[in-house]
């Protein structure tokens, strides 16, 4: 068996930047982001699609990056937590999460932030129930979720024009 599989070379649009990358074709998007692009902000808790820690946005939709192959993402628009802030200015979701205790250990946080961003991009006034539904695939072991709900609601308020 060949221990060194060949590499593929392709381009993603990562956080608004055209990003060429070469990687072993068996790699998931999660692995490509973390290992080949050094974007370690995206986390993992299972690599089986069960925890939501690896959620990123692909063409604006939340996806579990551990379930997507890197080769499937050629030319697609990928957003990770590293791209959420505008320069030094935190995204309102980030600011609200930090202010309201929605990130305790912070390990589930990138996945939840990205999932919440997709929600607010579509629905700027989500109800508590909609928020619960939207992040129901993201496990958080620290907070009990309540401060996360509140932070998403607060971010929605802060984002009002």
């Amino acid at each position, binding site marked *: 068996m060949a221990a060194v599989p060949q590499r593929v070379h392709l381009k993603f649009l990562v956080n608004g930047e055209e990003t060429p990358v070469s990687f072993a074709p068996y790699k998931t998007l999660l692995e490509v982001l973390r290992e080949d692009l050094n974007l370690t902000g995206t986390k993992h808790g299972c690599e089986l699609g*069960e925890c939501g820690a690896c959620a990123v946005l692909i063409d604006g939709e939340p996806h579990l990056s551990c379930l997507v192959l890197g080769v499937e993402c050629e030319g697609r628009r990928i957003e990770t937590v590293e791209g959420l802030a505008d320069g030094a200015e935190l995204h309102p979701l980030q600011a609200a999460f930090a202010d309201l205790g929605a990130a305790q250990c912070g390990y589930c946080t990138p996945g939840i932030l990205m999932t919440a961003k997709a929600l607010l991009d579509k629905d700027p006034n989500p109800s508590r129930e909609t928020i619960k539904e939207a992040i129901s695939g993201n496990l958080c072991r620290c907070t*009990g979720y309540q401060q996360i709900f509140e932070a998403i609601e607060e971010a929605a308020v802060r984002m009002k024009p």
Partner: protein
Amino acid sequence: MSTQGKLRVIGKARRRVDGRAKVTGLTRFADDIVLPRMLHCRLLRSPHPHAEILEIITGKAEKLPGVHLILTGKDFPVTFGIMPVAQDEYPLANGRVRYVGDPIAAVIAKDEQTATEALDLIEVKFKQLKTISNPEEALQNPEPRIHDYGDQGNIHRIQSYEFGDVDEALAKSDHVFDDLFFYEGNTHLPIEQHASVAAPDGEGKLTLWSSTQVPHYIHRALARALQMPASHIRVIACPNGGGFGGKCDLHNHEIVVSRAALKLGRPVKICLNREEVFYMHRGRHPVLMRMRTGVTKDGKLTGMHLQTLLDGGGYGSYGPASTFYTGVLQTVTYELPRYKFDACRAFTNKPPCGPKRGHGTPQPRFGQEVQLDKIAEKLKLDPAELRLNIVAKPDTLTANWLKIGTIGLAECIRQATARSDWKKKFRKMGPGRGIGIACSSYLSGAGLPIYWNKMPHSGVQLLADRSGQVTVFCGATEIGQGSDDVLAAMVAEVLGMDPYDIRCVTGDTALTPVDLGSYSSRVTVMMGNAAIQAAEKLKAQIAEAAGEQLEVIPSRLSFSDGRVFVTENSNKSLSFKEAVEFAEVKFGTLGAVGSYTPPRAPGRYKGAGVGPSPAYSYSACVVEVEVDQATGWIAVPKIWIAHDIGRTVNPVLARGQVEGSVYMGLAEALMEEQVFRRLPPKMSHALVHKIPSLLEYKSPTSLDMPEIDTILIEDPDPNCPFGAKEAGQGPLLPVMPAVANAIFDAVGVRIDELPITPDKVLKALELKAAGKNPRVGPERFPLVPYPKSIFVLPPWEGGDGKESKRDDAVAVV
């Protein structure tokens, strides 16, 4: 400790000092570390629960291109274990495996993929041994022994303590309640899987970055495991992506990557996969309990005899401490004149159990609080009133010689019942709906370290220089609970600074003074006290220099908002930076240290070291449930929790700790269980883990969580920094029994074992419909060969805290 004056930082709701890093993805967890020339490690784990290893054939794996090193038990002749009394593990199996998942060999390769392929090429020949699946089997089968140490046969620890003559107390009681309870094991499930990176530095010394809650203990234990001087080892605790007790052991993989890195002269990383995290475990012990409690007709406790039987799994871990903790804290919540406690921990062929949030105390707490509900029912008393009448008194000793300081429990009960409208709801909610109450208490730090010594439990060092910066160094470990924020807040409060202007360097054994780690809810109290001491010393130097400049005595100066000024004339002031410059001129380079050692506990008998704490926190919890009588499904619309926190350091974080505890308690009440099953005899009859995946190990999602009403009760404790007690574990404890009691209120059935799943509720409802005892729970308690008790007289019976004879008792009035 220092609590005078108006507080400007302590008690204010703030963004935590490390909050920005956490929301930008910049917090560097262990698996985020990438070093040049780094190799990757994977472990081969046992597929058998108990077997002898006859041969390990690694030839094929060694030849796989990209493989750099293969290690087996031969490379690790020395045992290890986190407690000095339980050195019973090998980093890689030494001829014997004791649970499915016990590590056997390690491959270090150029990448994870290659290492994983190589694992498949290693051949291991086993001789399977008889397996022990639970403590009863362990008691019945002293042979073959899983370990050749321990109190007897397959019993790891067995012990008995009696504080006053309990049988006599029970005989004189109006009623004696005799109940059996079972608490199933469950696991921590931090979302971060354990990861470690080991690397030799330029001098050939070792650095280990790891997801650990206890870098100091790891540092000590690693030096022994590697047979290397501790001065050549540096352990850096990365911020943990959740710990909950699961990252408190020295783990096999930490030793393996360290050895590999030293051998290869290159960095080596490992990150466990989720299945391996389940095998690593060290979680909640399954505990069977028998609790006999005497009461007077008006609901006062007269005595309690608690027996526990713990399923320890395949190794010792923190088991000796866990065994004590299934009993020692039963006395600090309510007045209990006499108490007897028998405990036994058995070895079984399952992943080792250890400390999980609440360490050993949630199990007996569940039993005690459900039993109190039964007592109230029988005596026709309101269970909240019954508890209010027996709350322990402040500044007293308990029957087992624990010193209680402040106690805010009565206020917790009053607030939780008032906010939940308890009086209007209890026994009045109608069919299928109910409300339940339970209380608890917990340590704010263990009074003794896990290895015997008289040195400080926490040390803090401060650096201040002419730039106006202040850096604080402490071995404490950030596991999400906010220890860095507490550290910065304490120093900022004393020095009149903004906490965001203080730099925290923590959890690094090469740079930071020893702190014993993030366990037993000890950090706020111990690190906090050390930090205040250091900051007060630095403040005194700065005040002396500033006083000279401002021509006042130092005691007339105030430190606030980054300035040092004359208290009654704030126009006479210096900036903090200027004041530090003058202090540097006067004293030379500035620095200060502080340290903290808990007060000596009054108990003098052997075993009195487990249970003492500088302060106990208290909680009261009210839970509302709706039970669907057709399906047994339990819905929880709302939970009220009142927690005696002493003083709140940062309300945002305190609330998070309390709600996170309630979440985890509710999870244990309703769904979490780490269970095993036997394969059919034709398939080896082996004992396997039923659910080593996140999908099947049920934990609550955002959709499952009820609204939580958190009430923080502030009654500053003089032993604590600015009066602050713990908040991260105590509030978990009352949730499980409050749920069970609410279910009784709703449908009149008792579920005396956890988790309370719909099938158990249905079964109990069927029993009820058939006119039988509507209870589901353990039916019998096996014969356990508990030894003769160590007898100690309670303080009020003439005891002196030492072991004594039964007839030394003086008459009790």
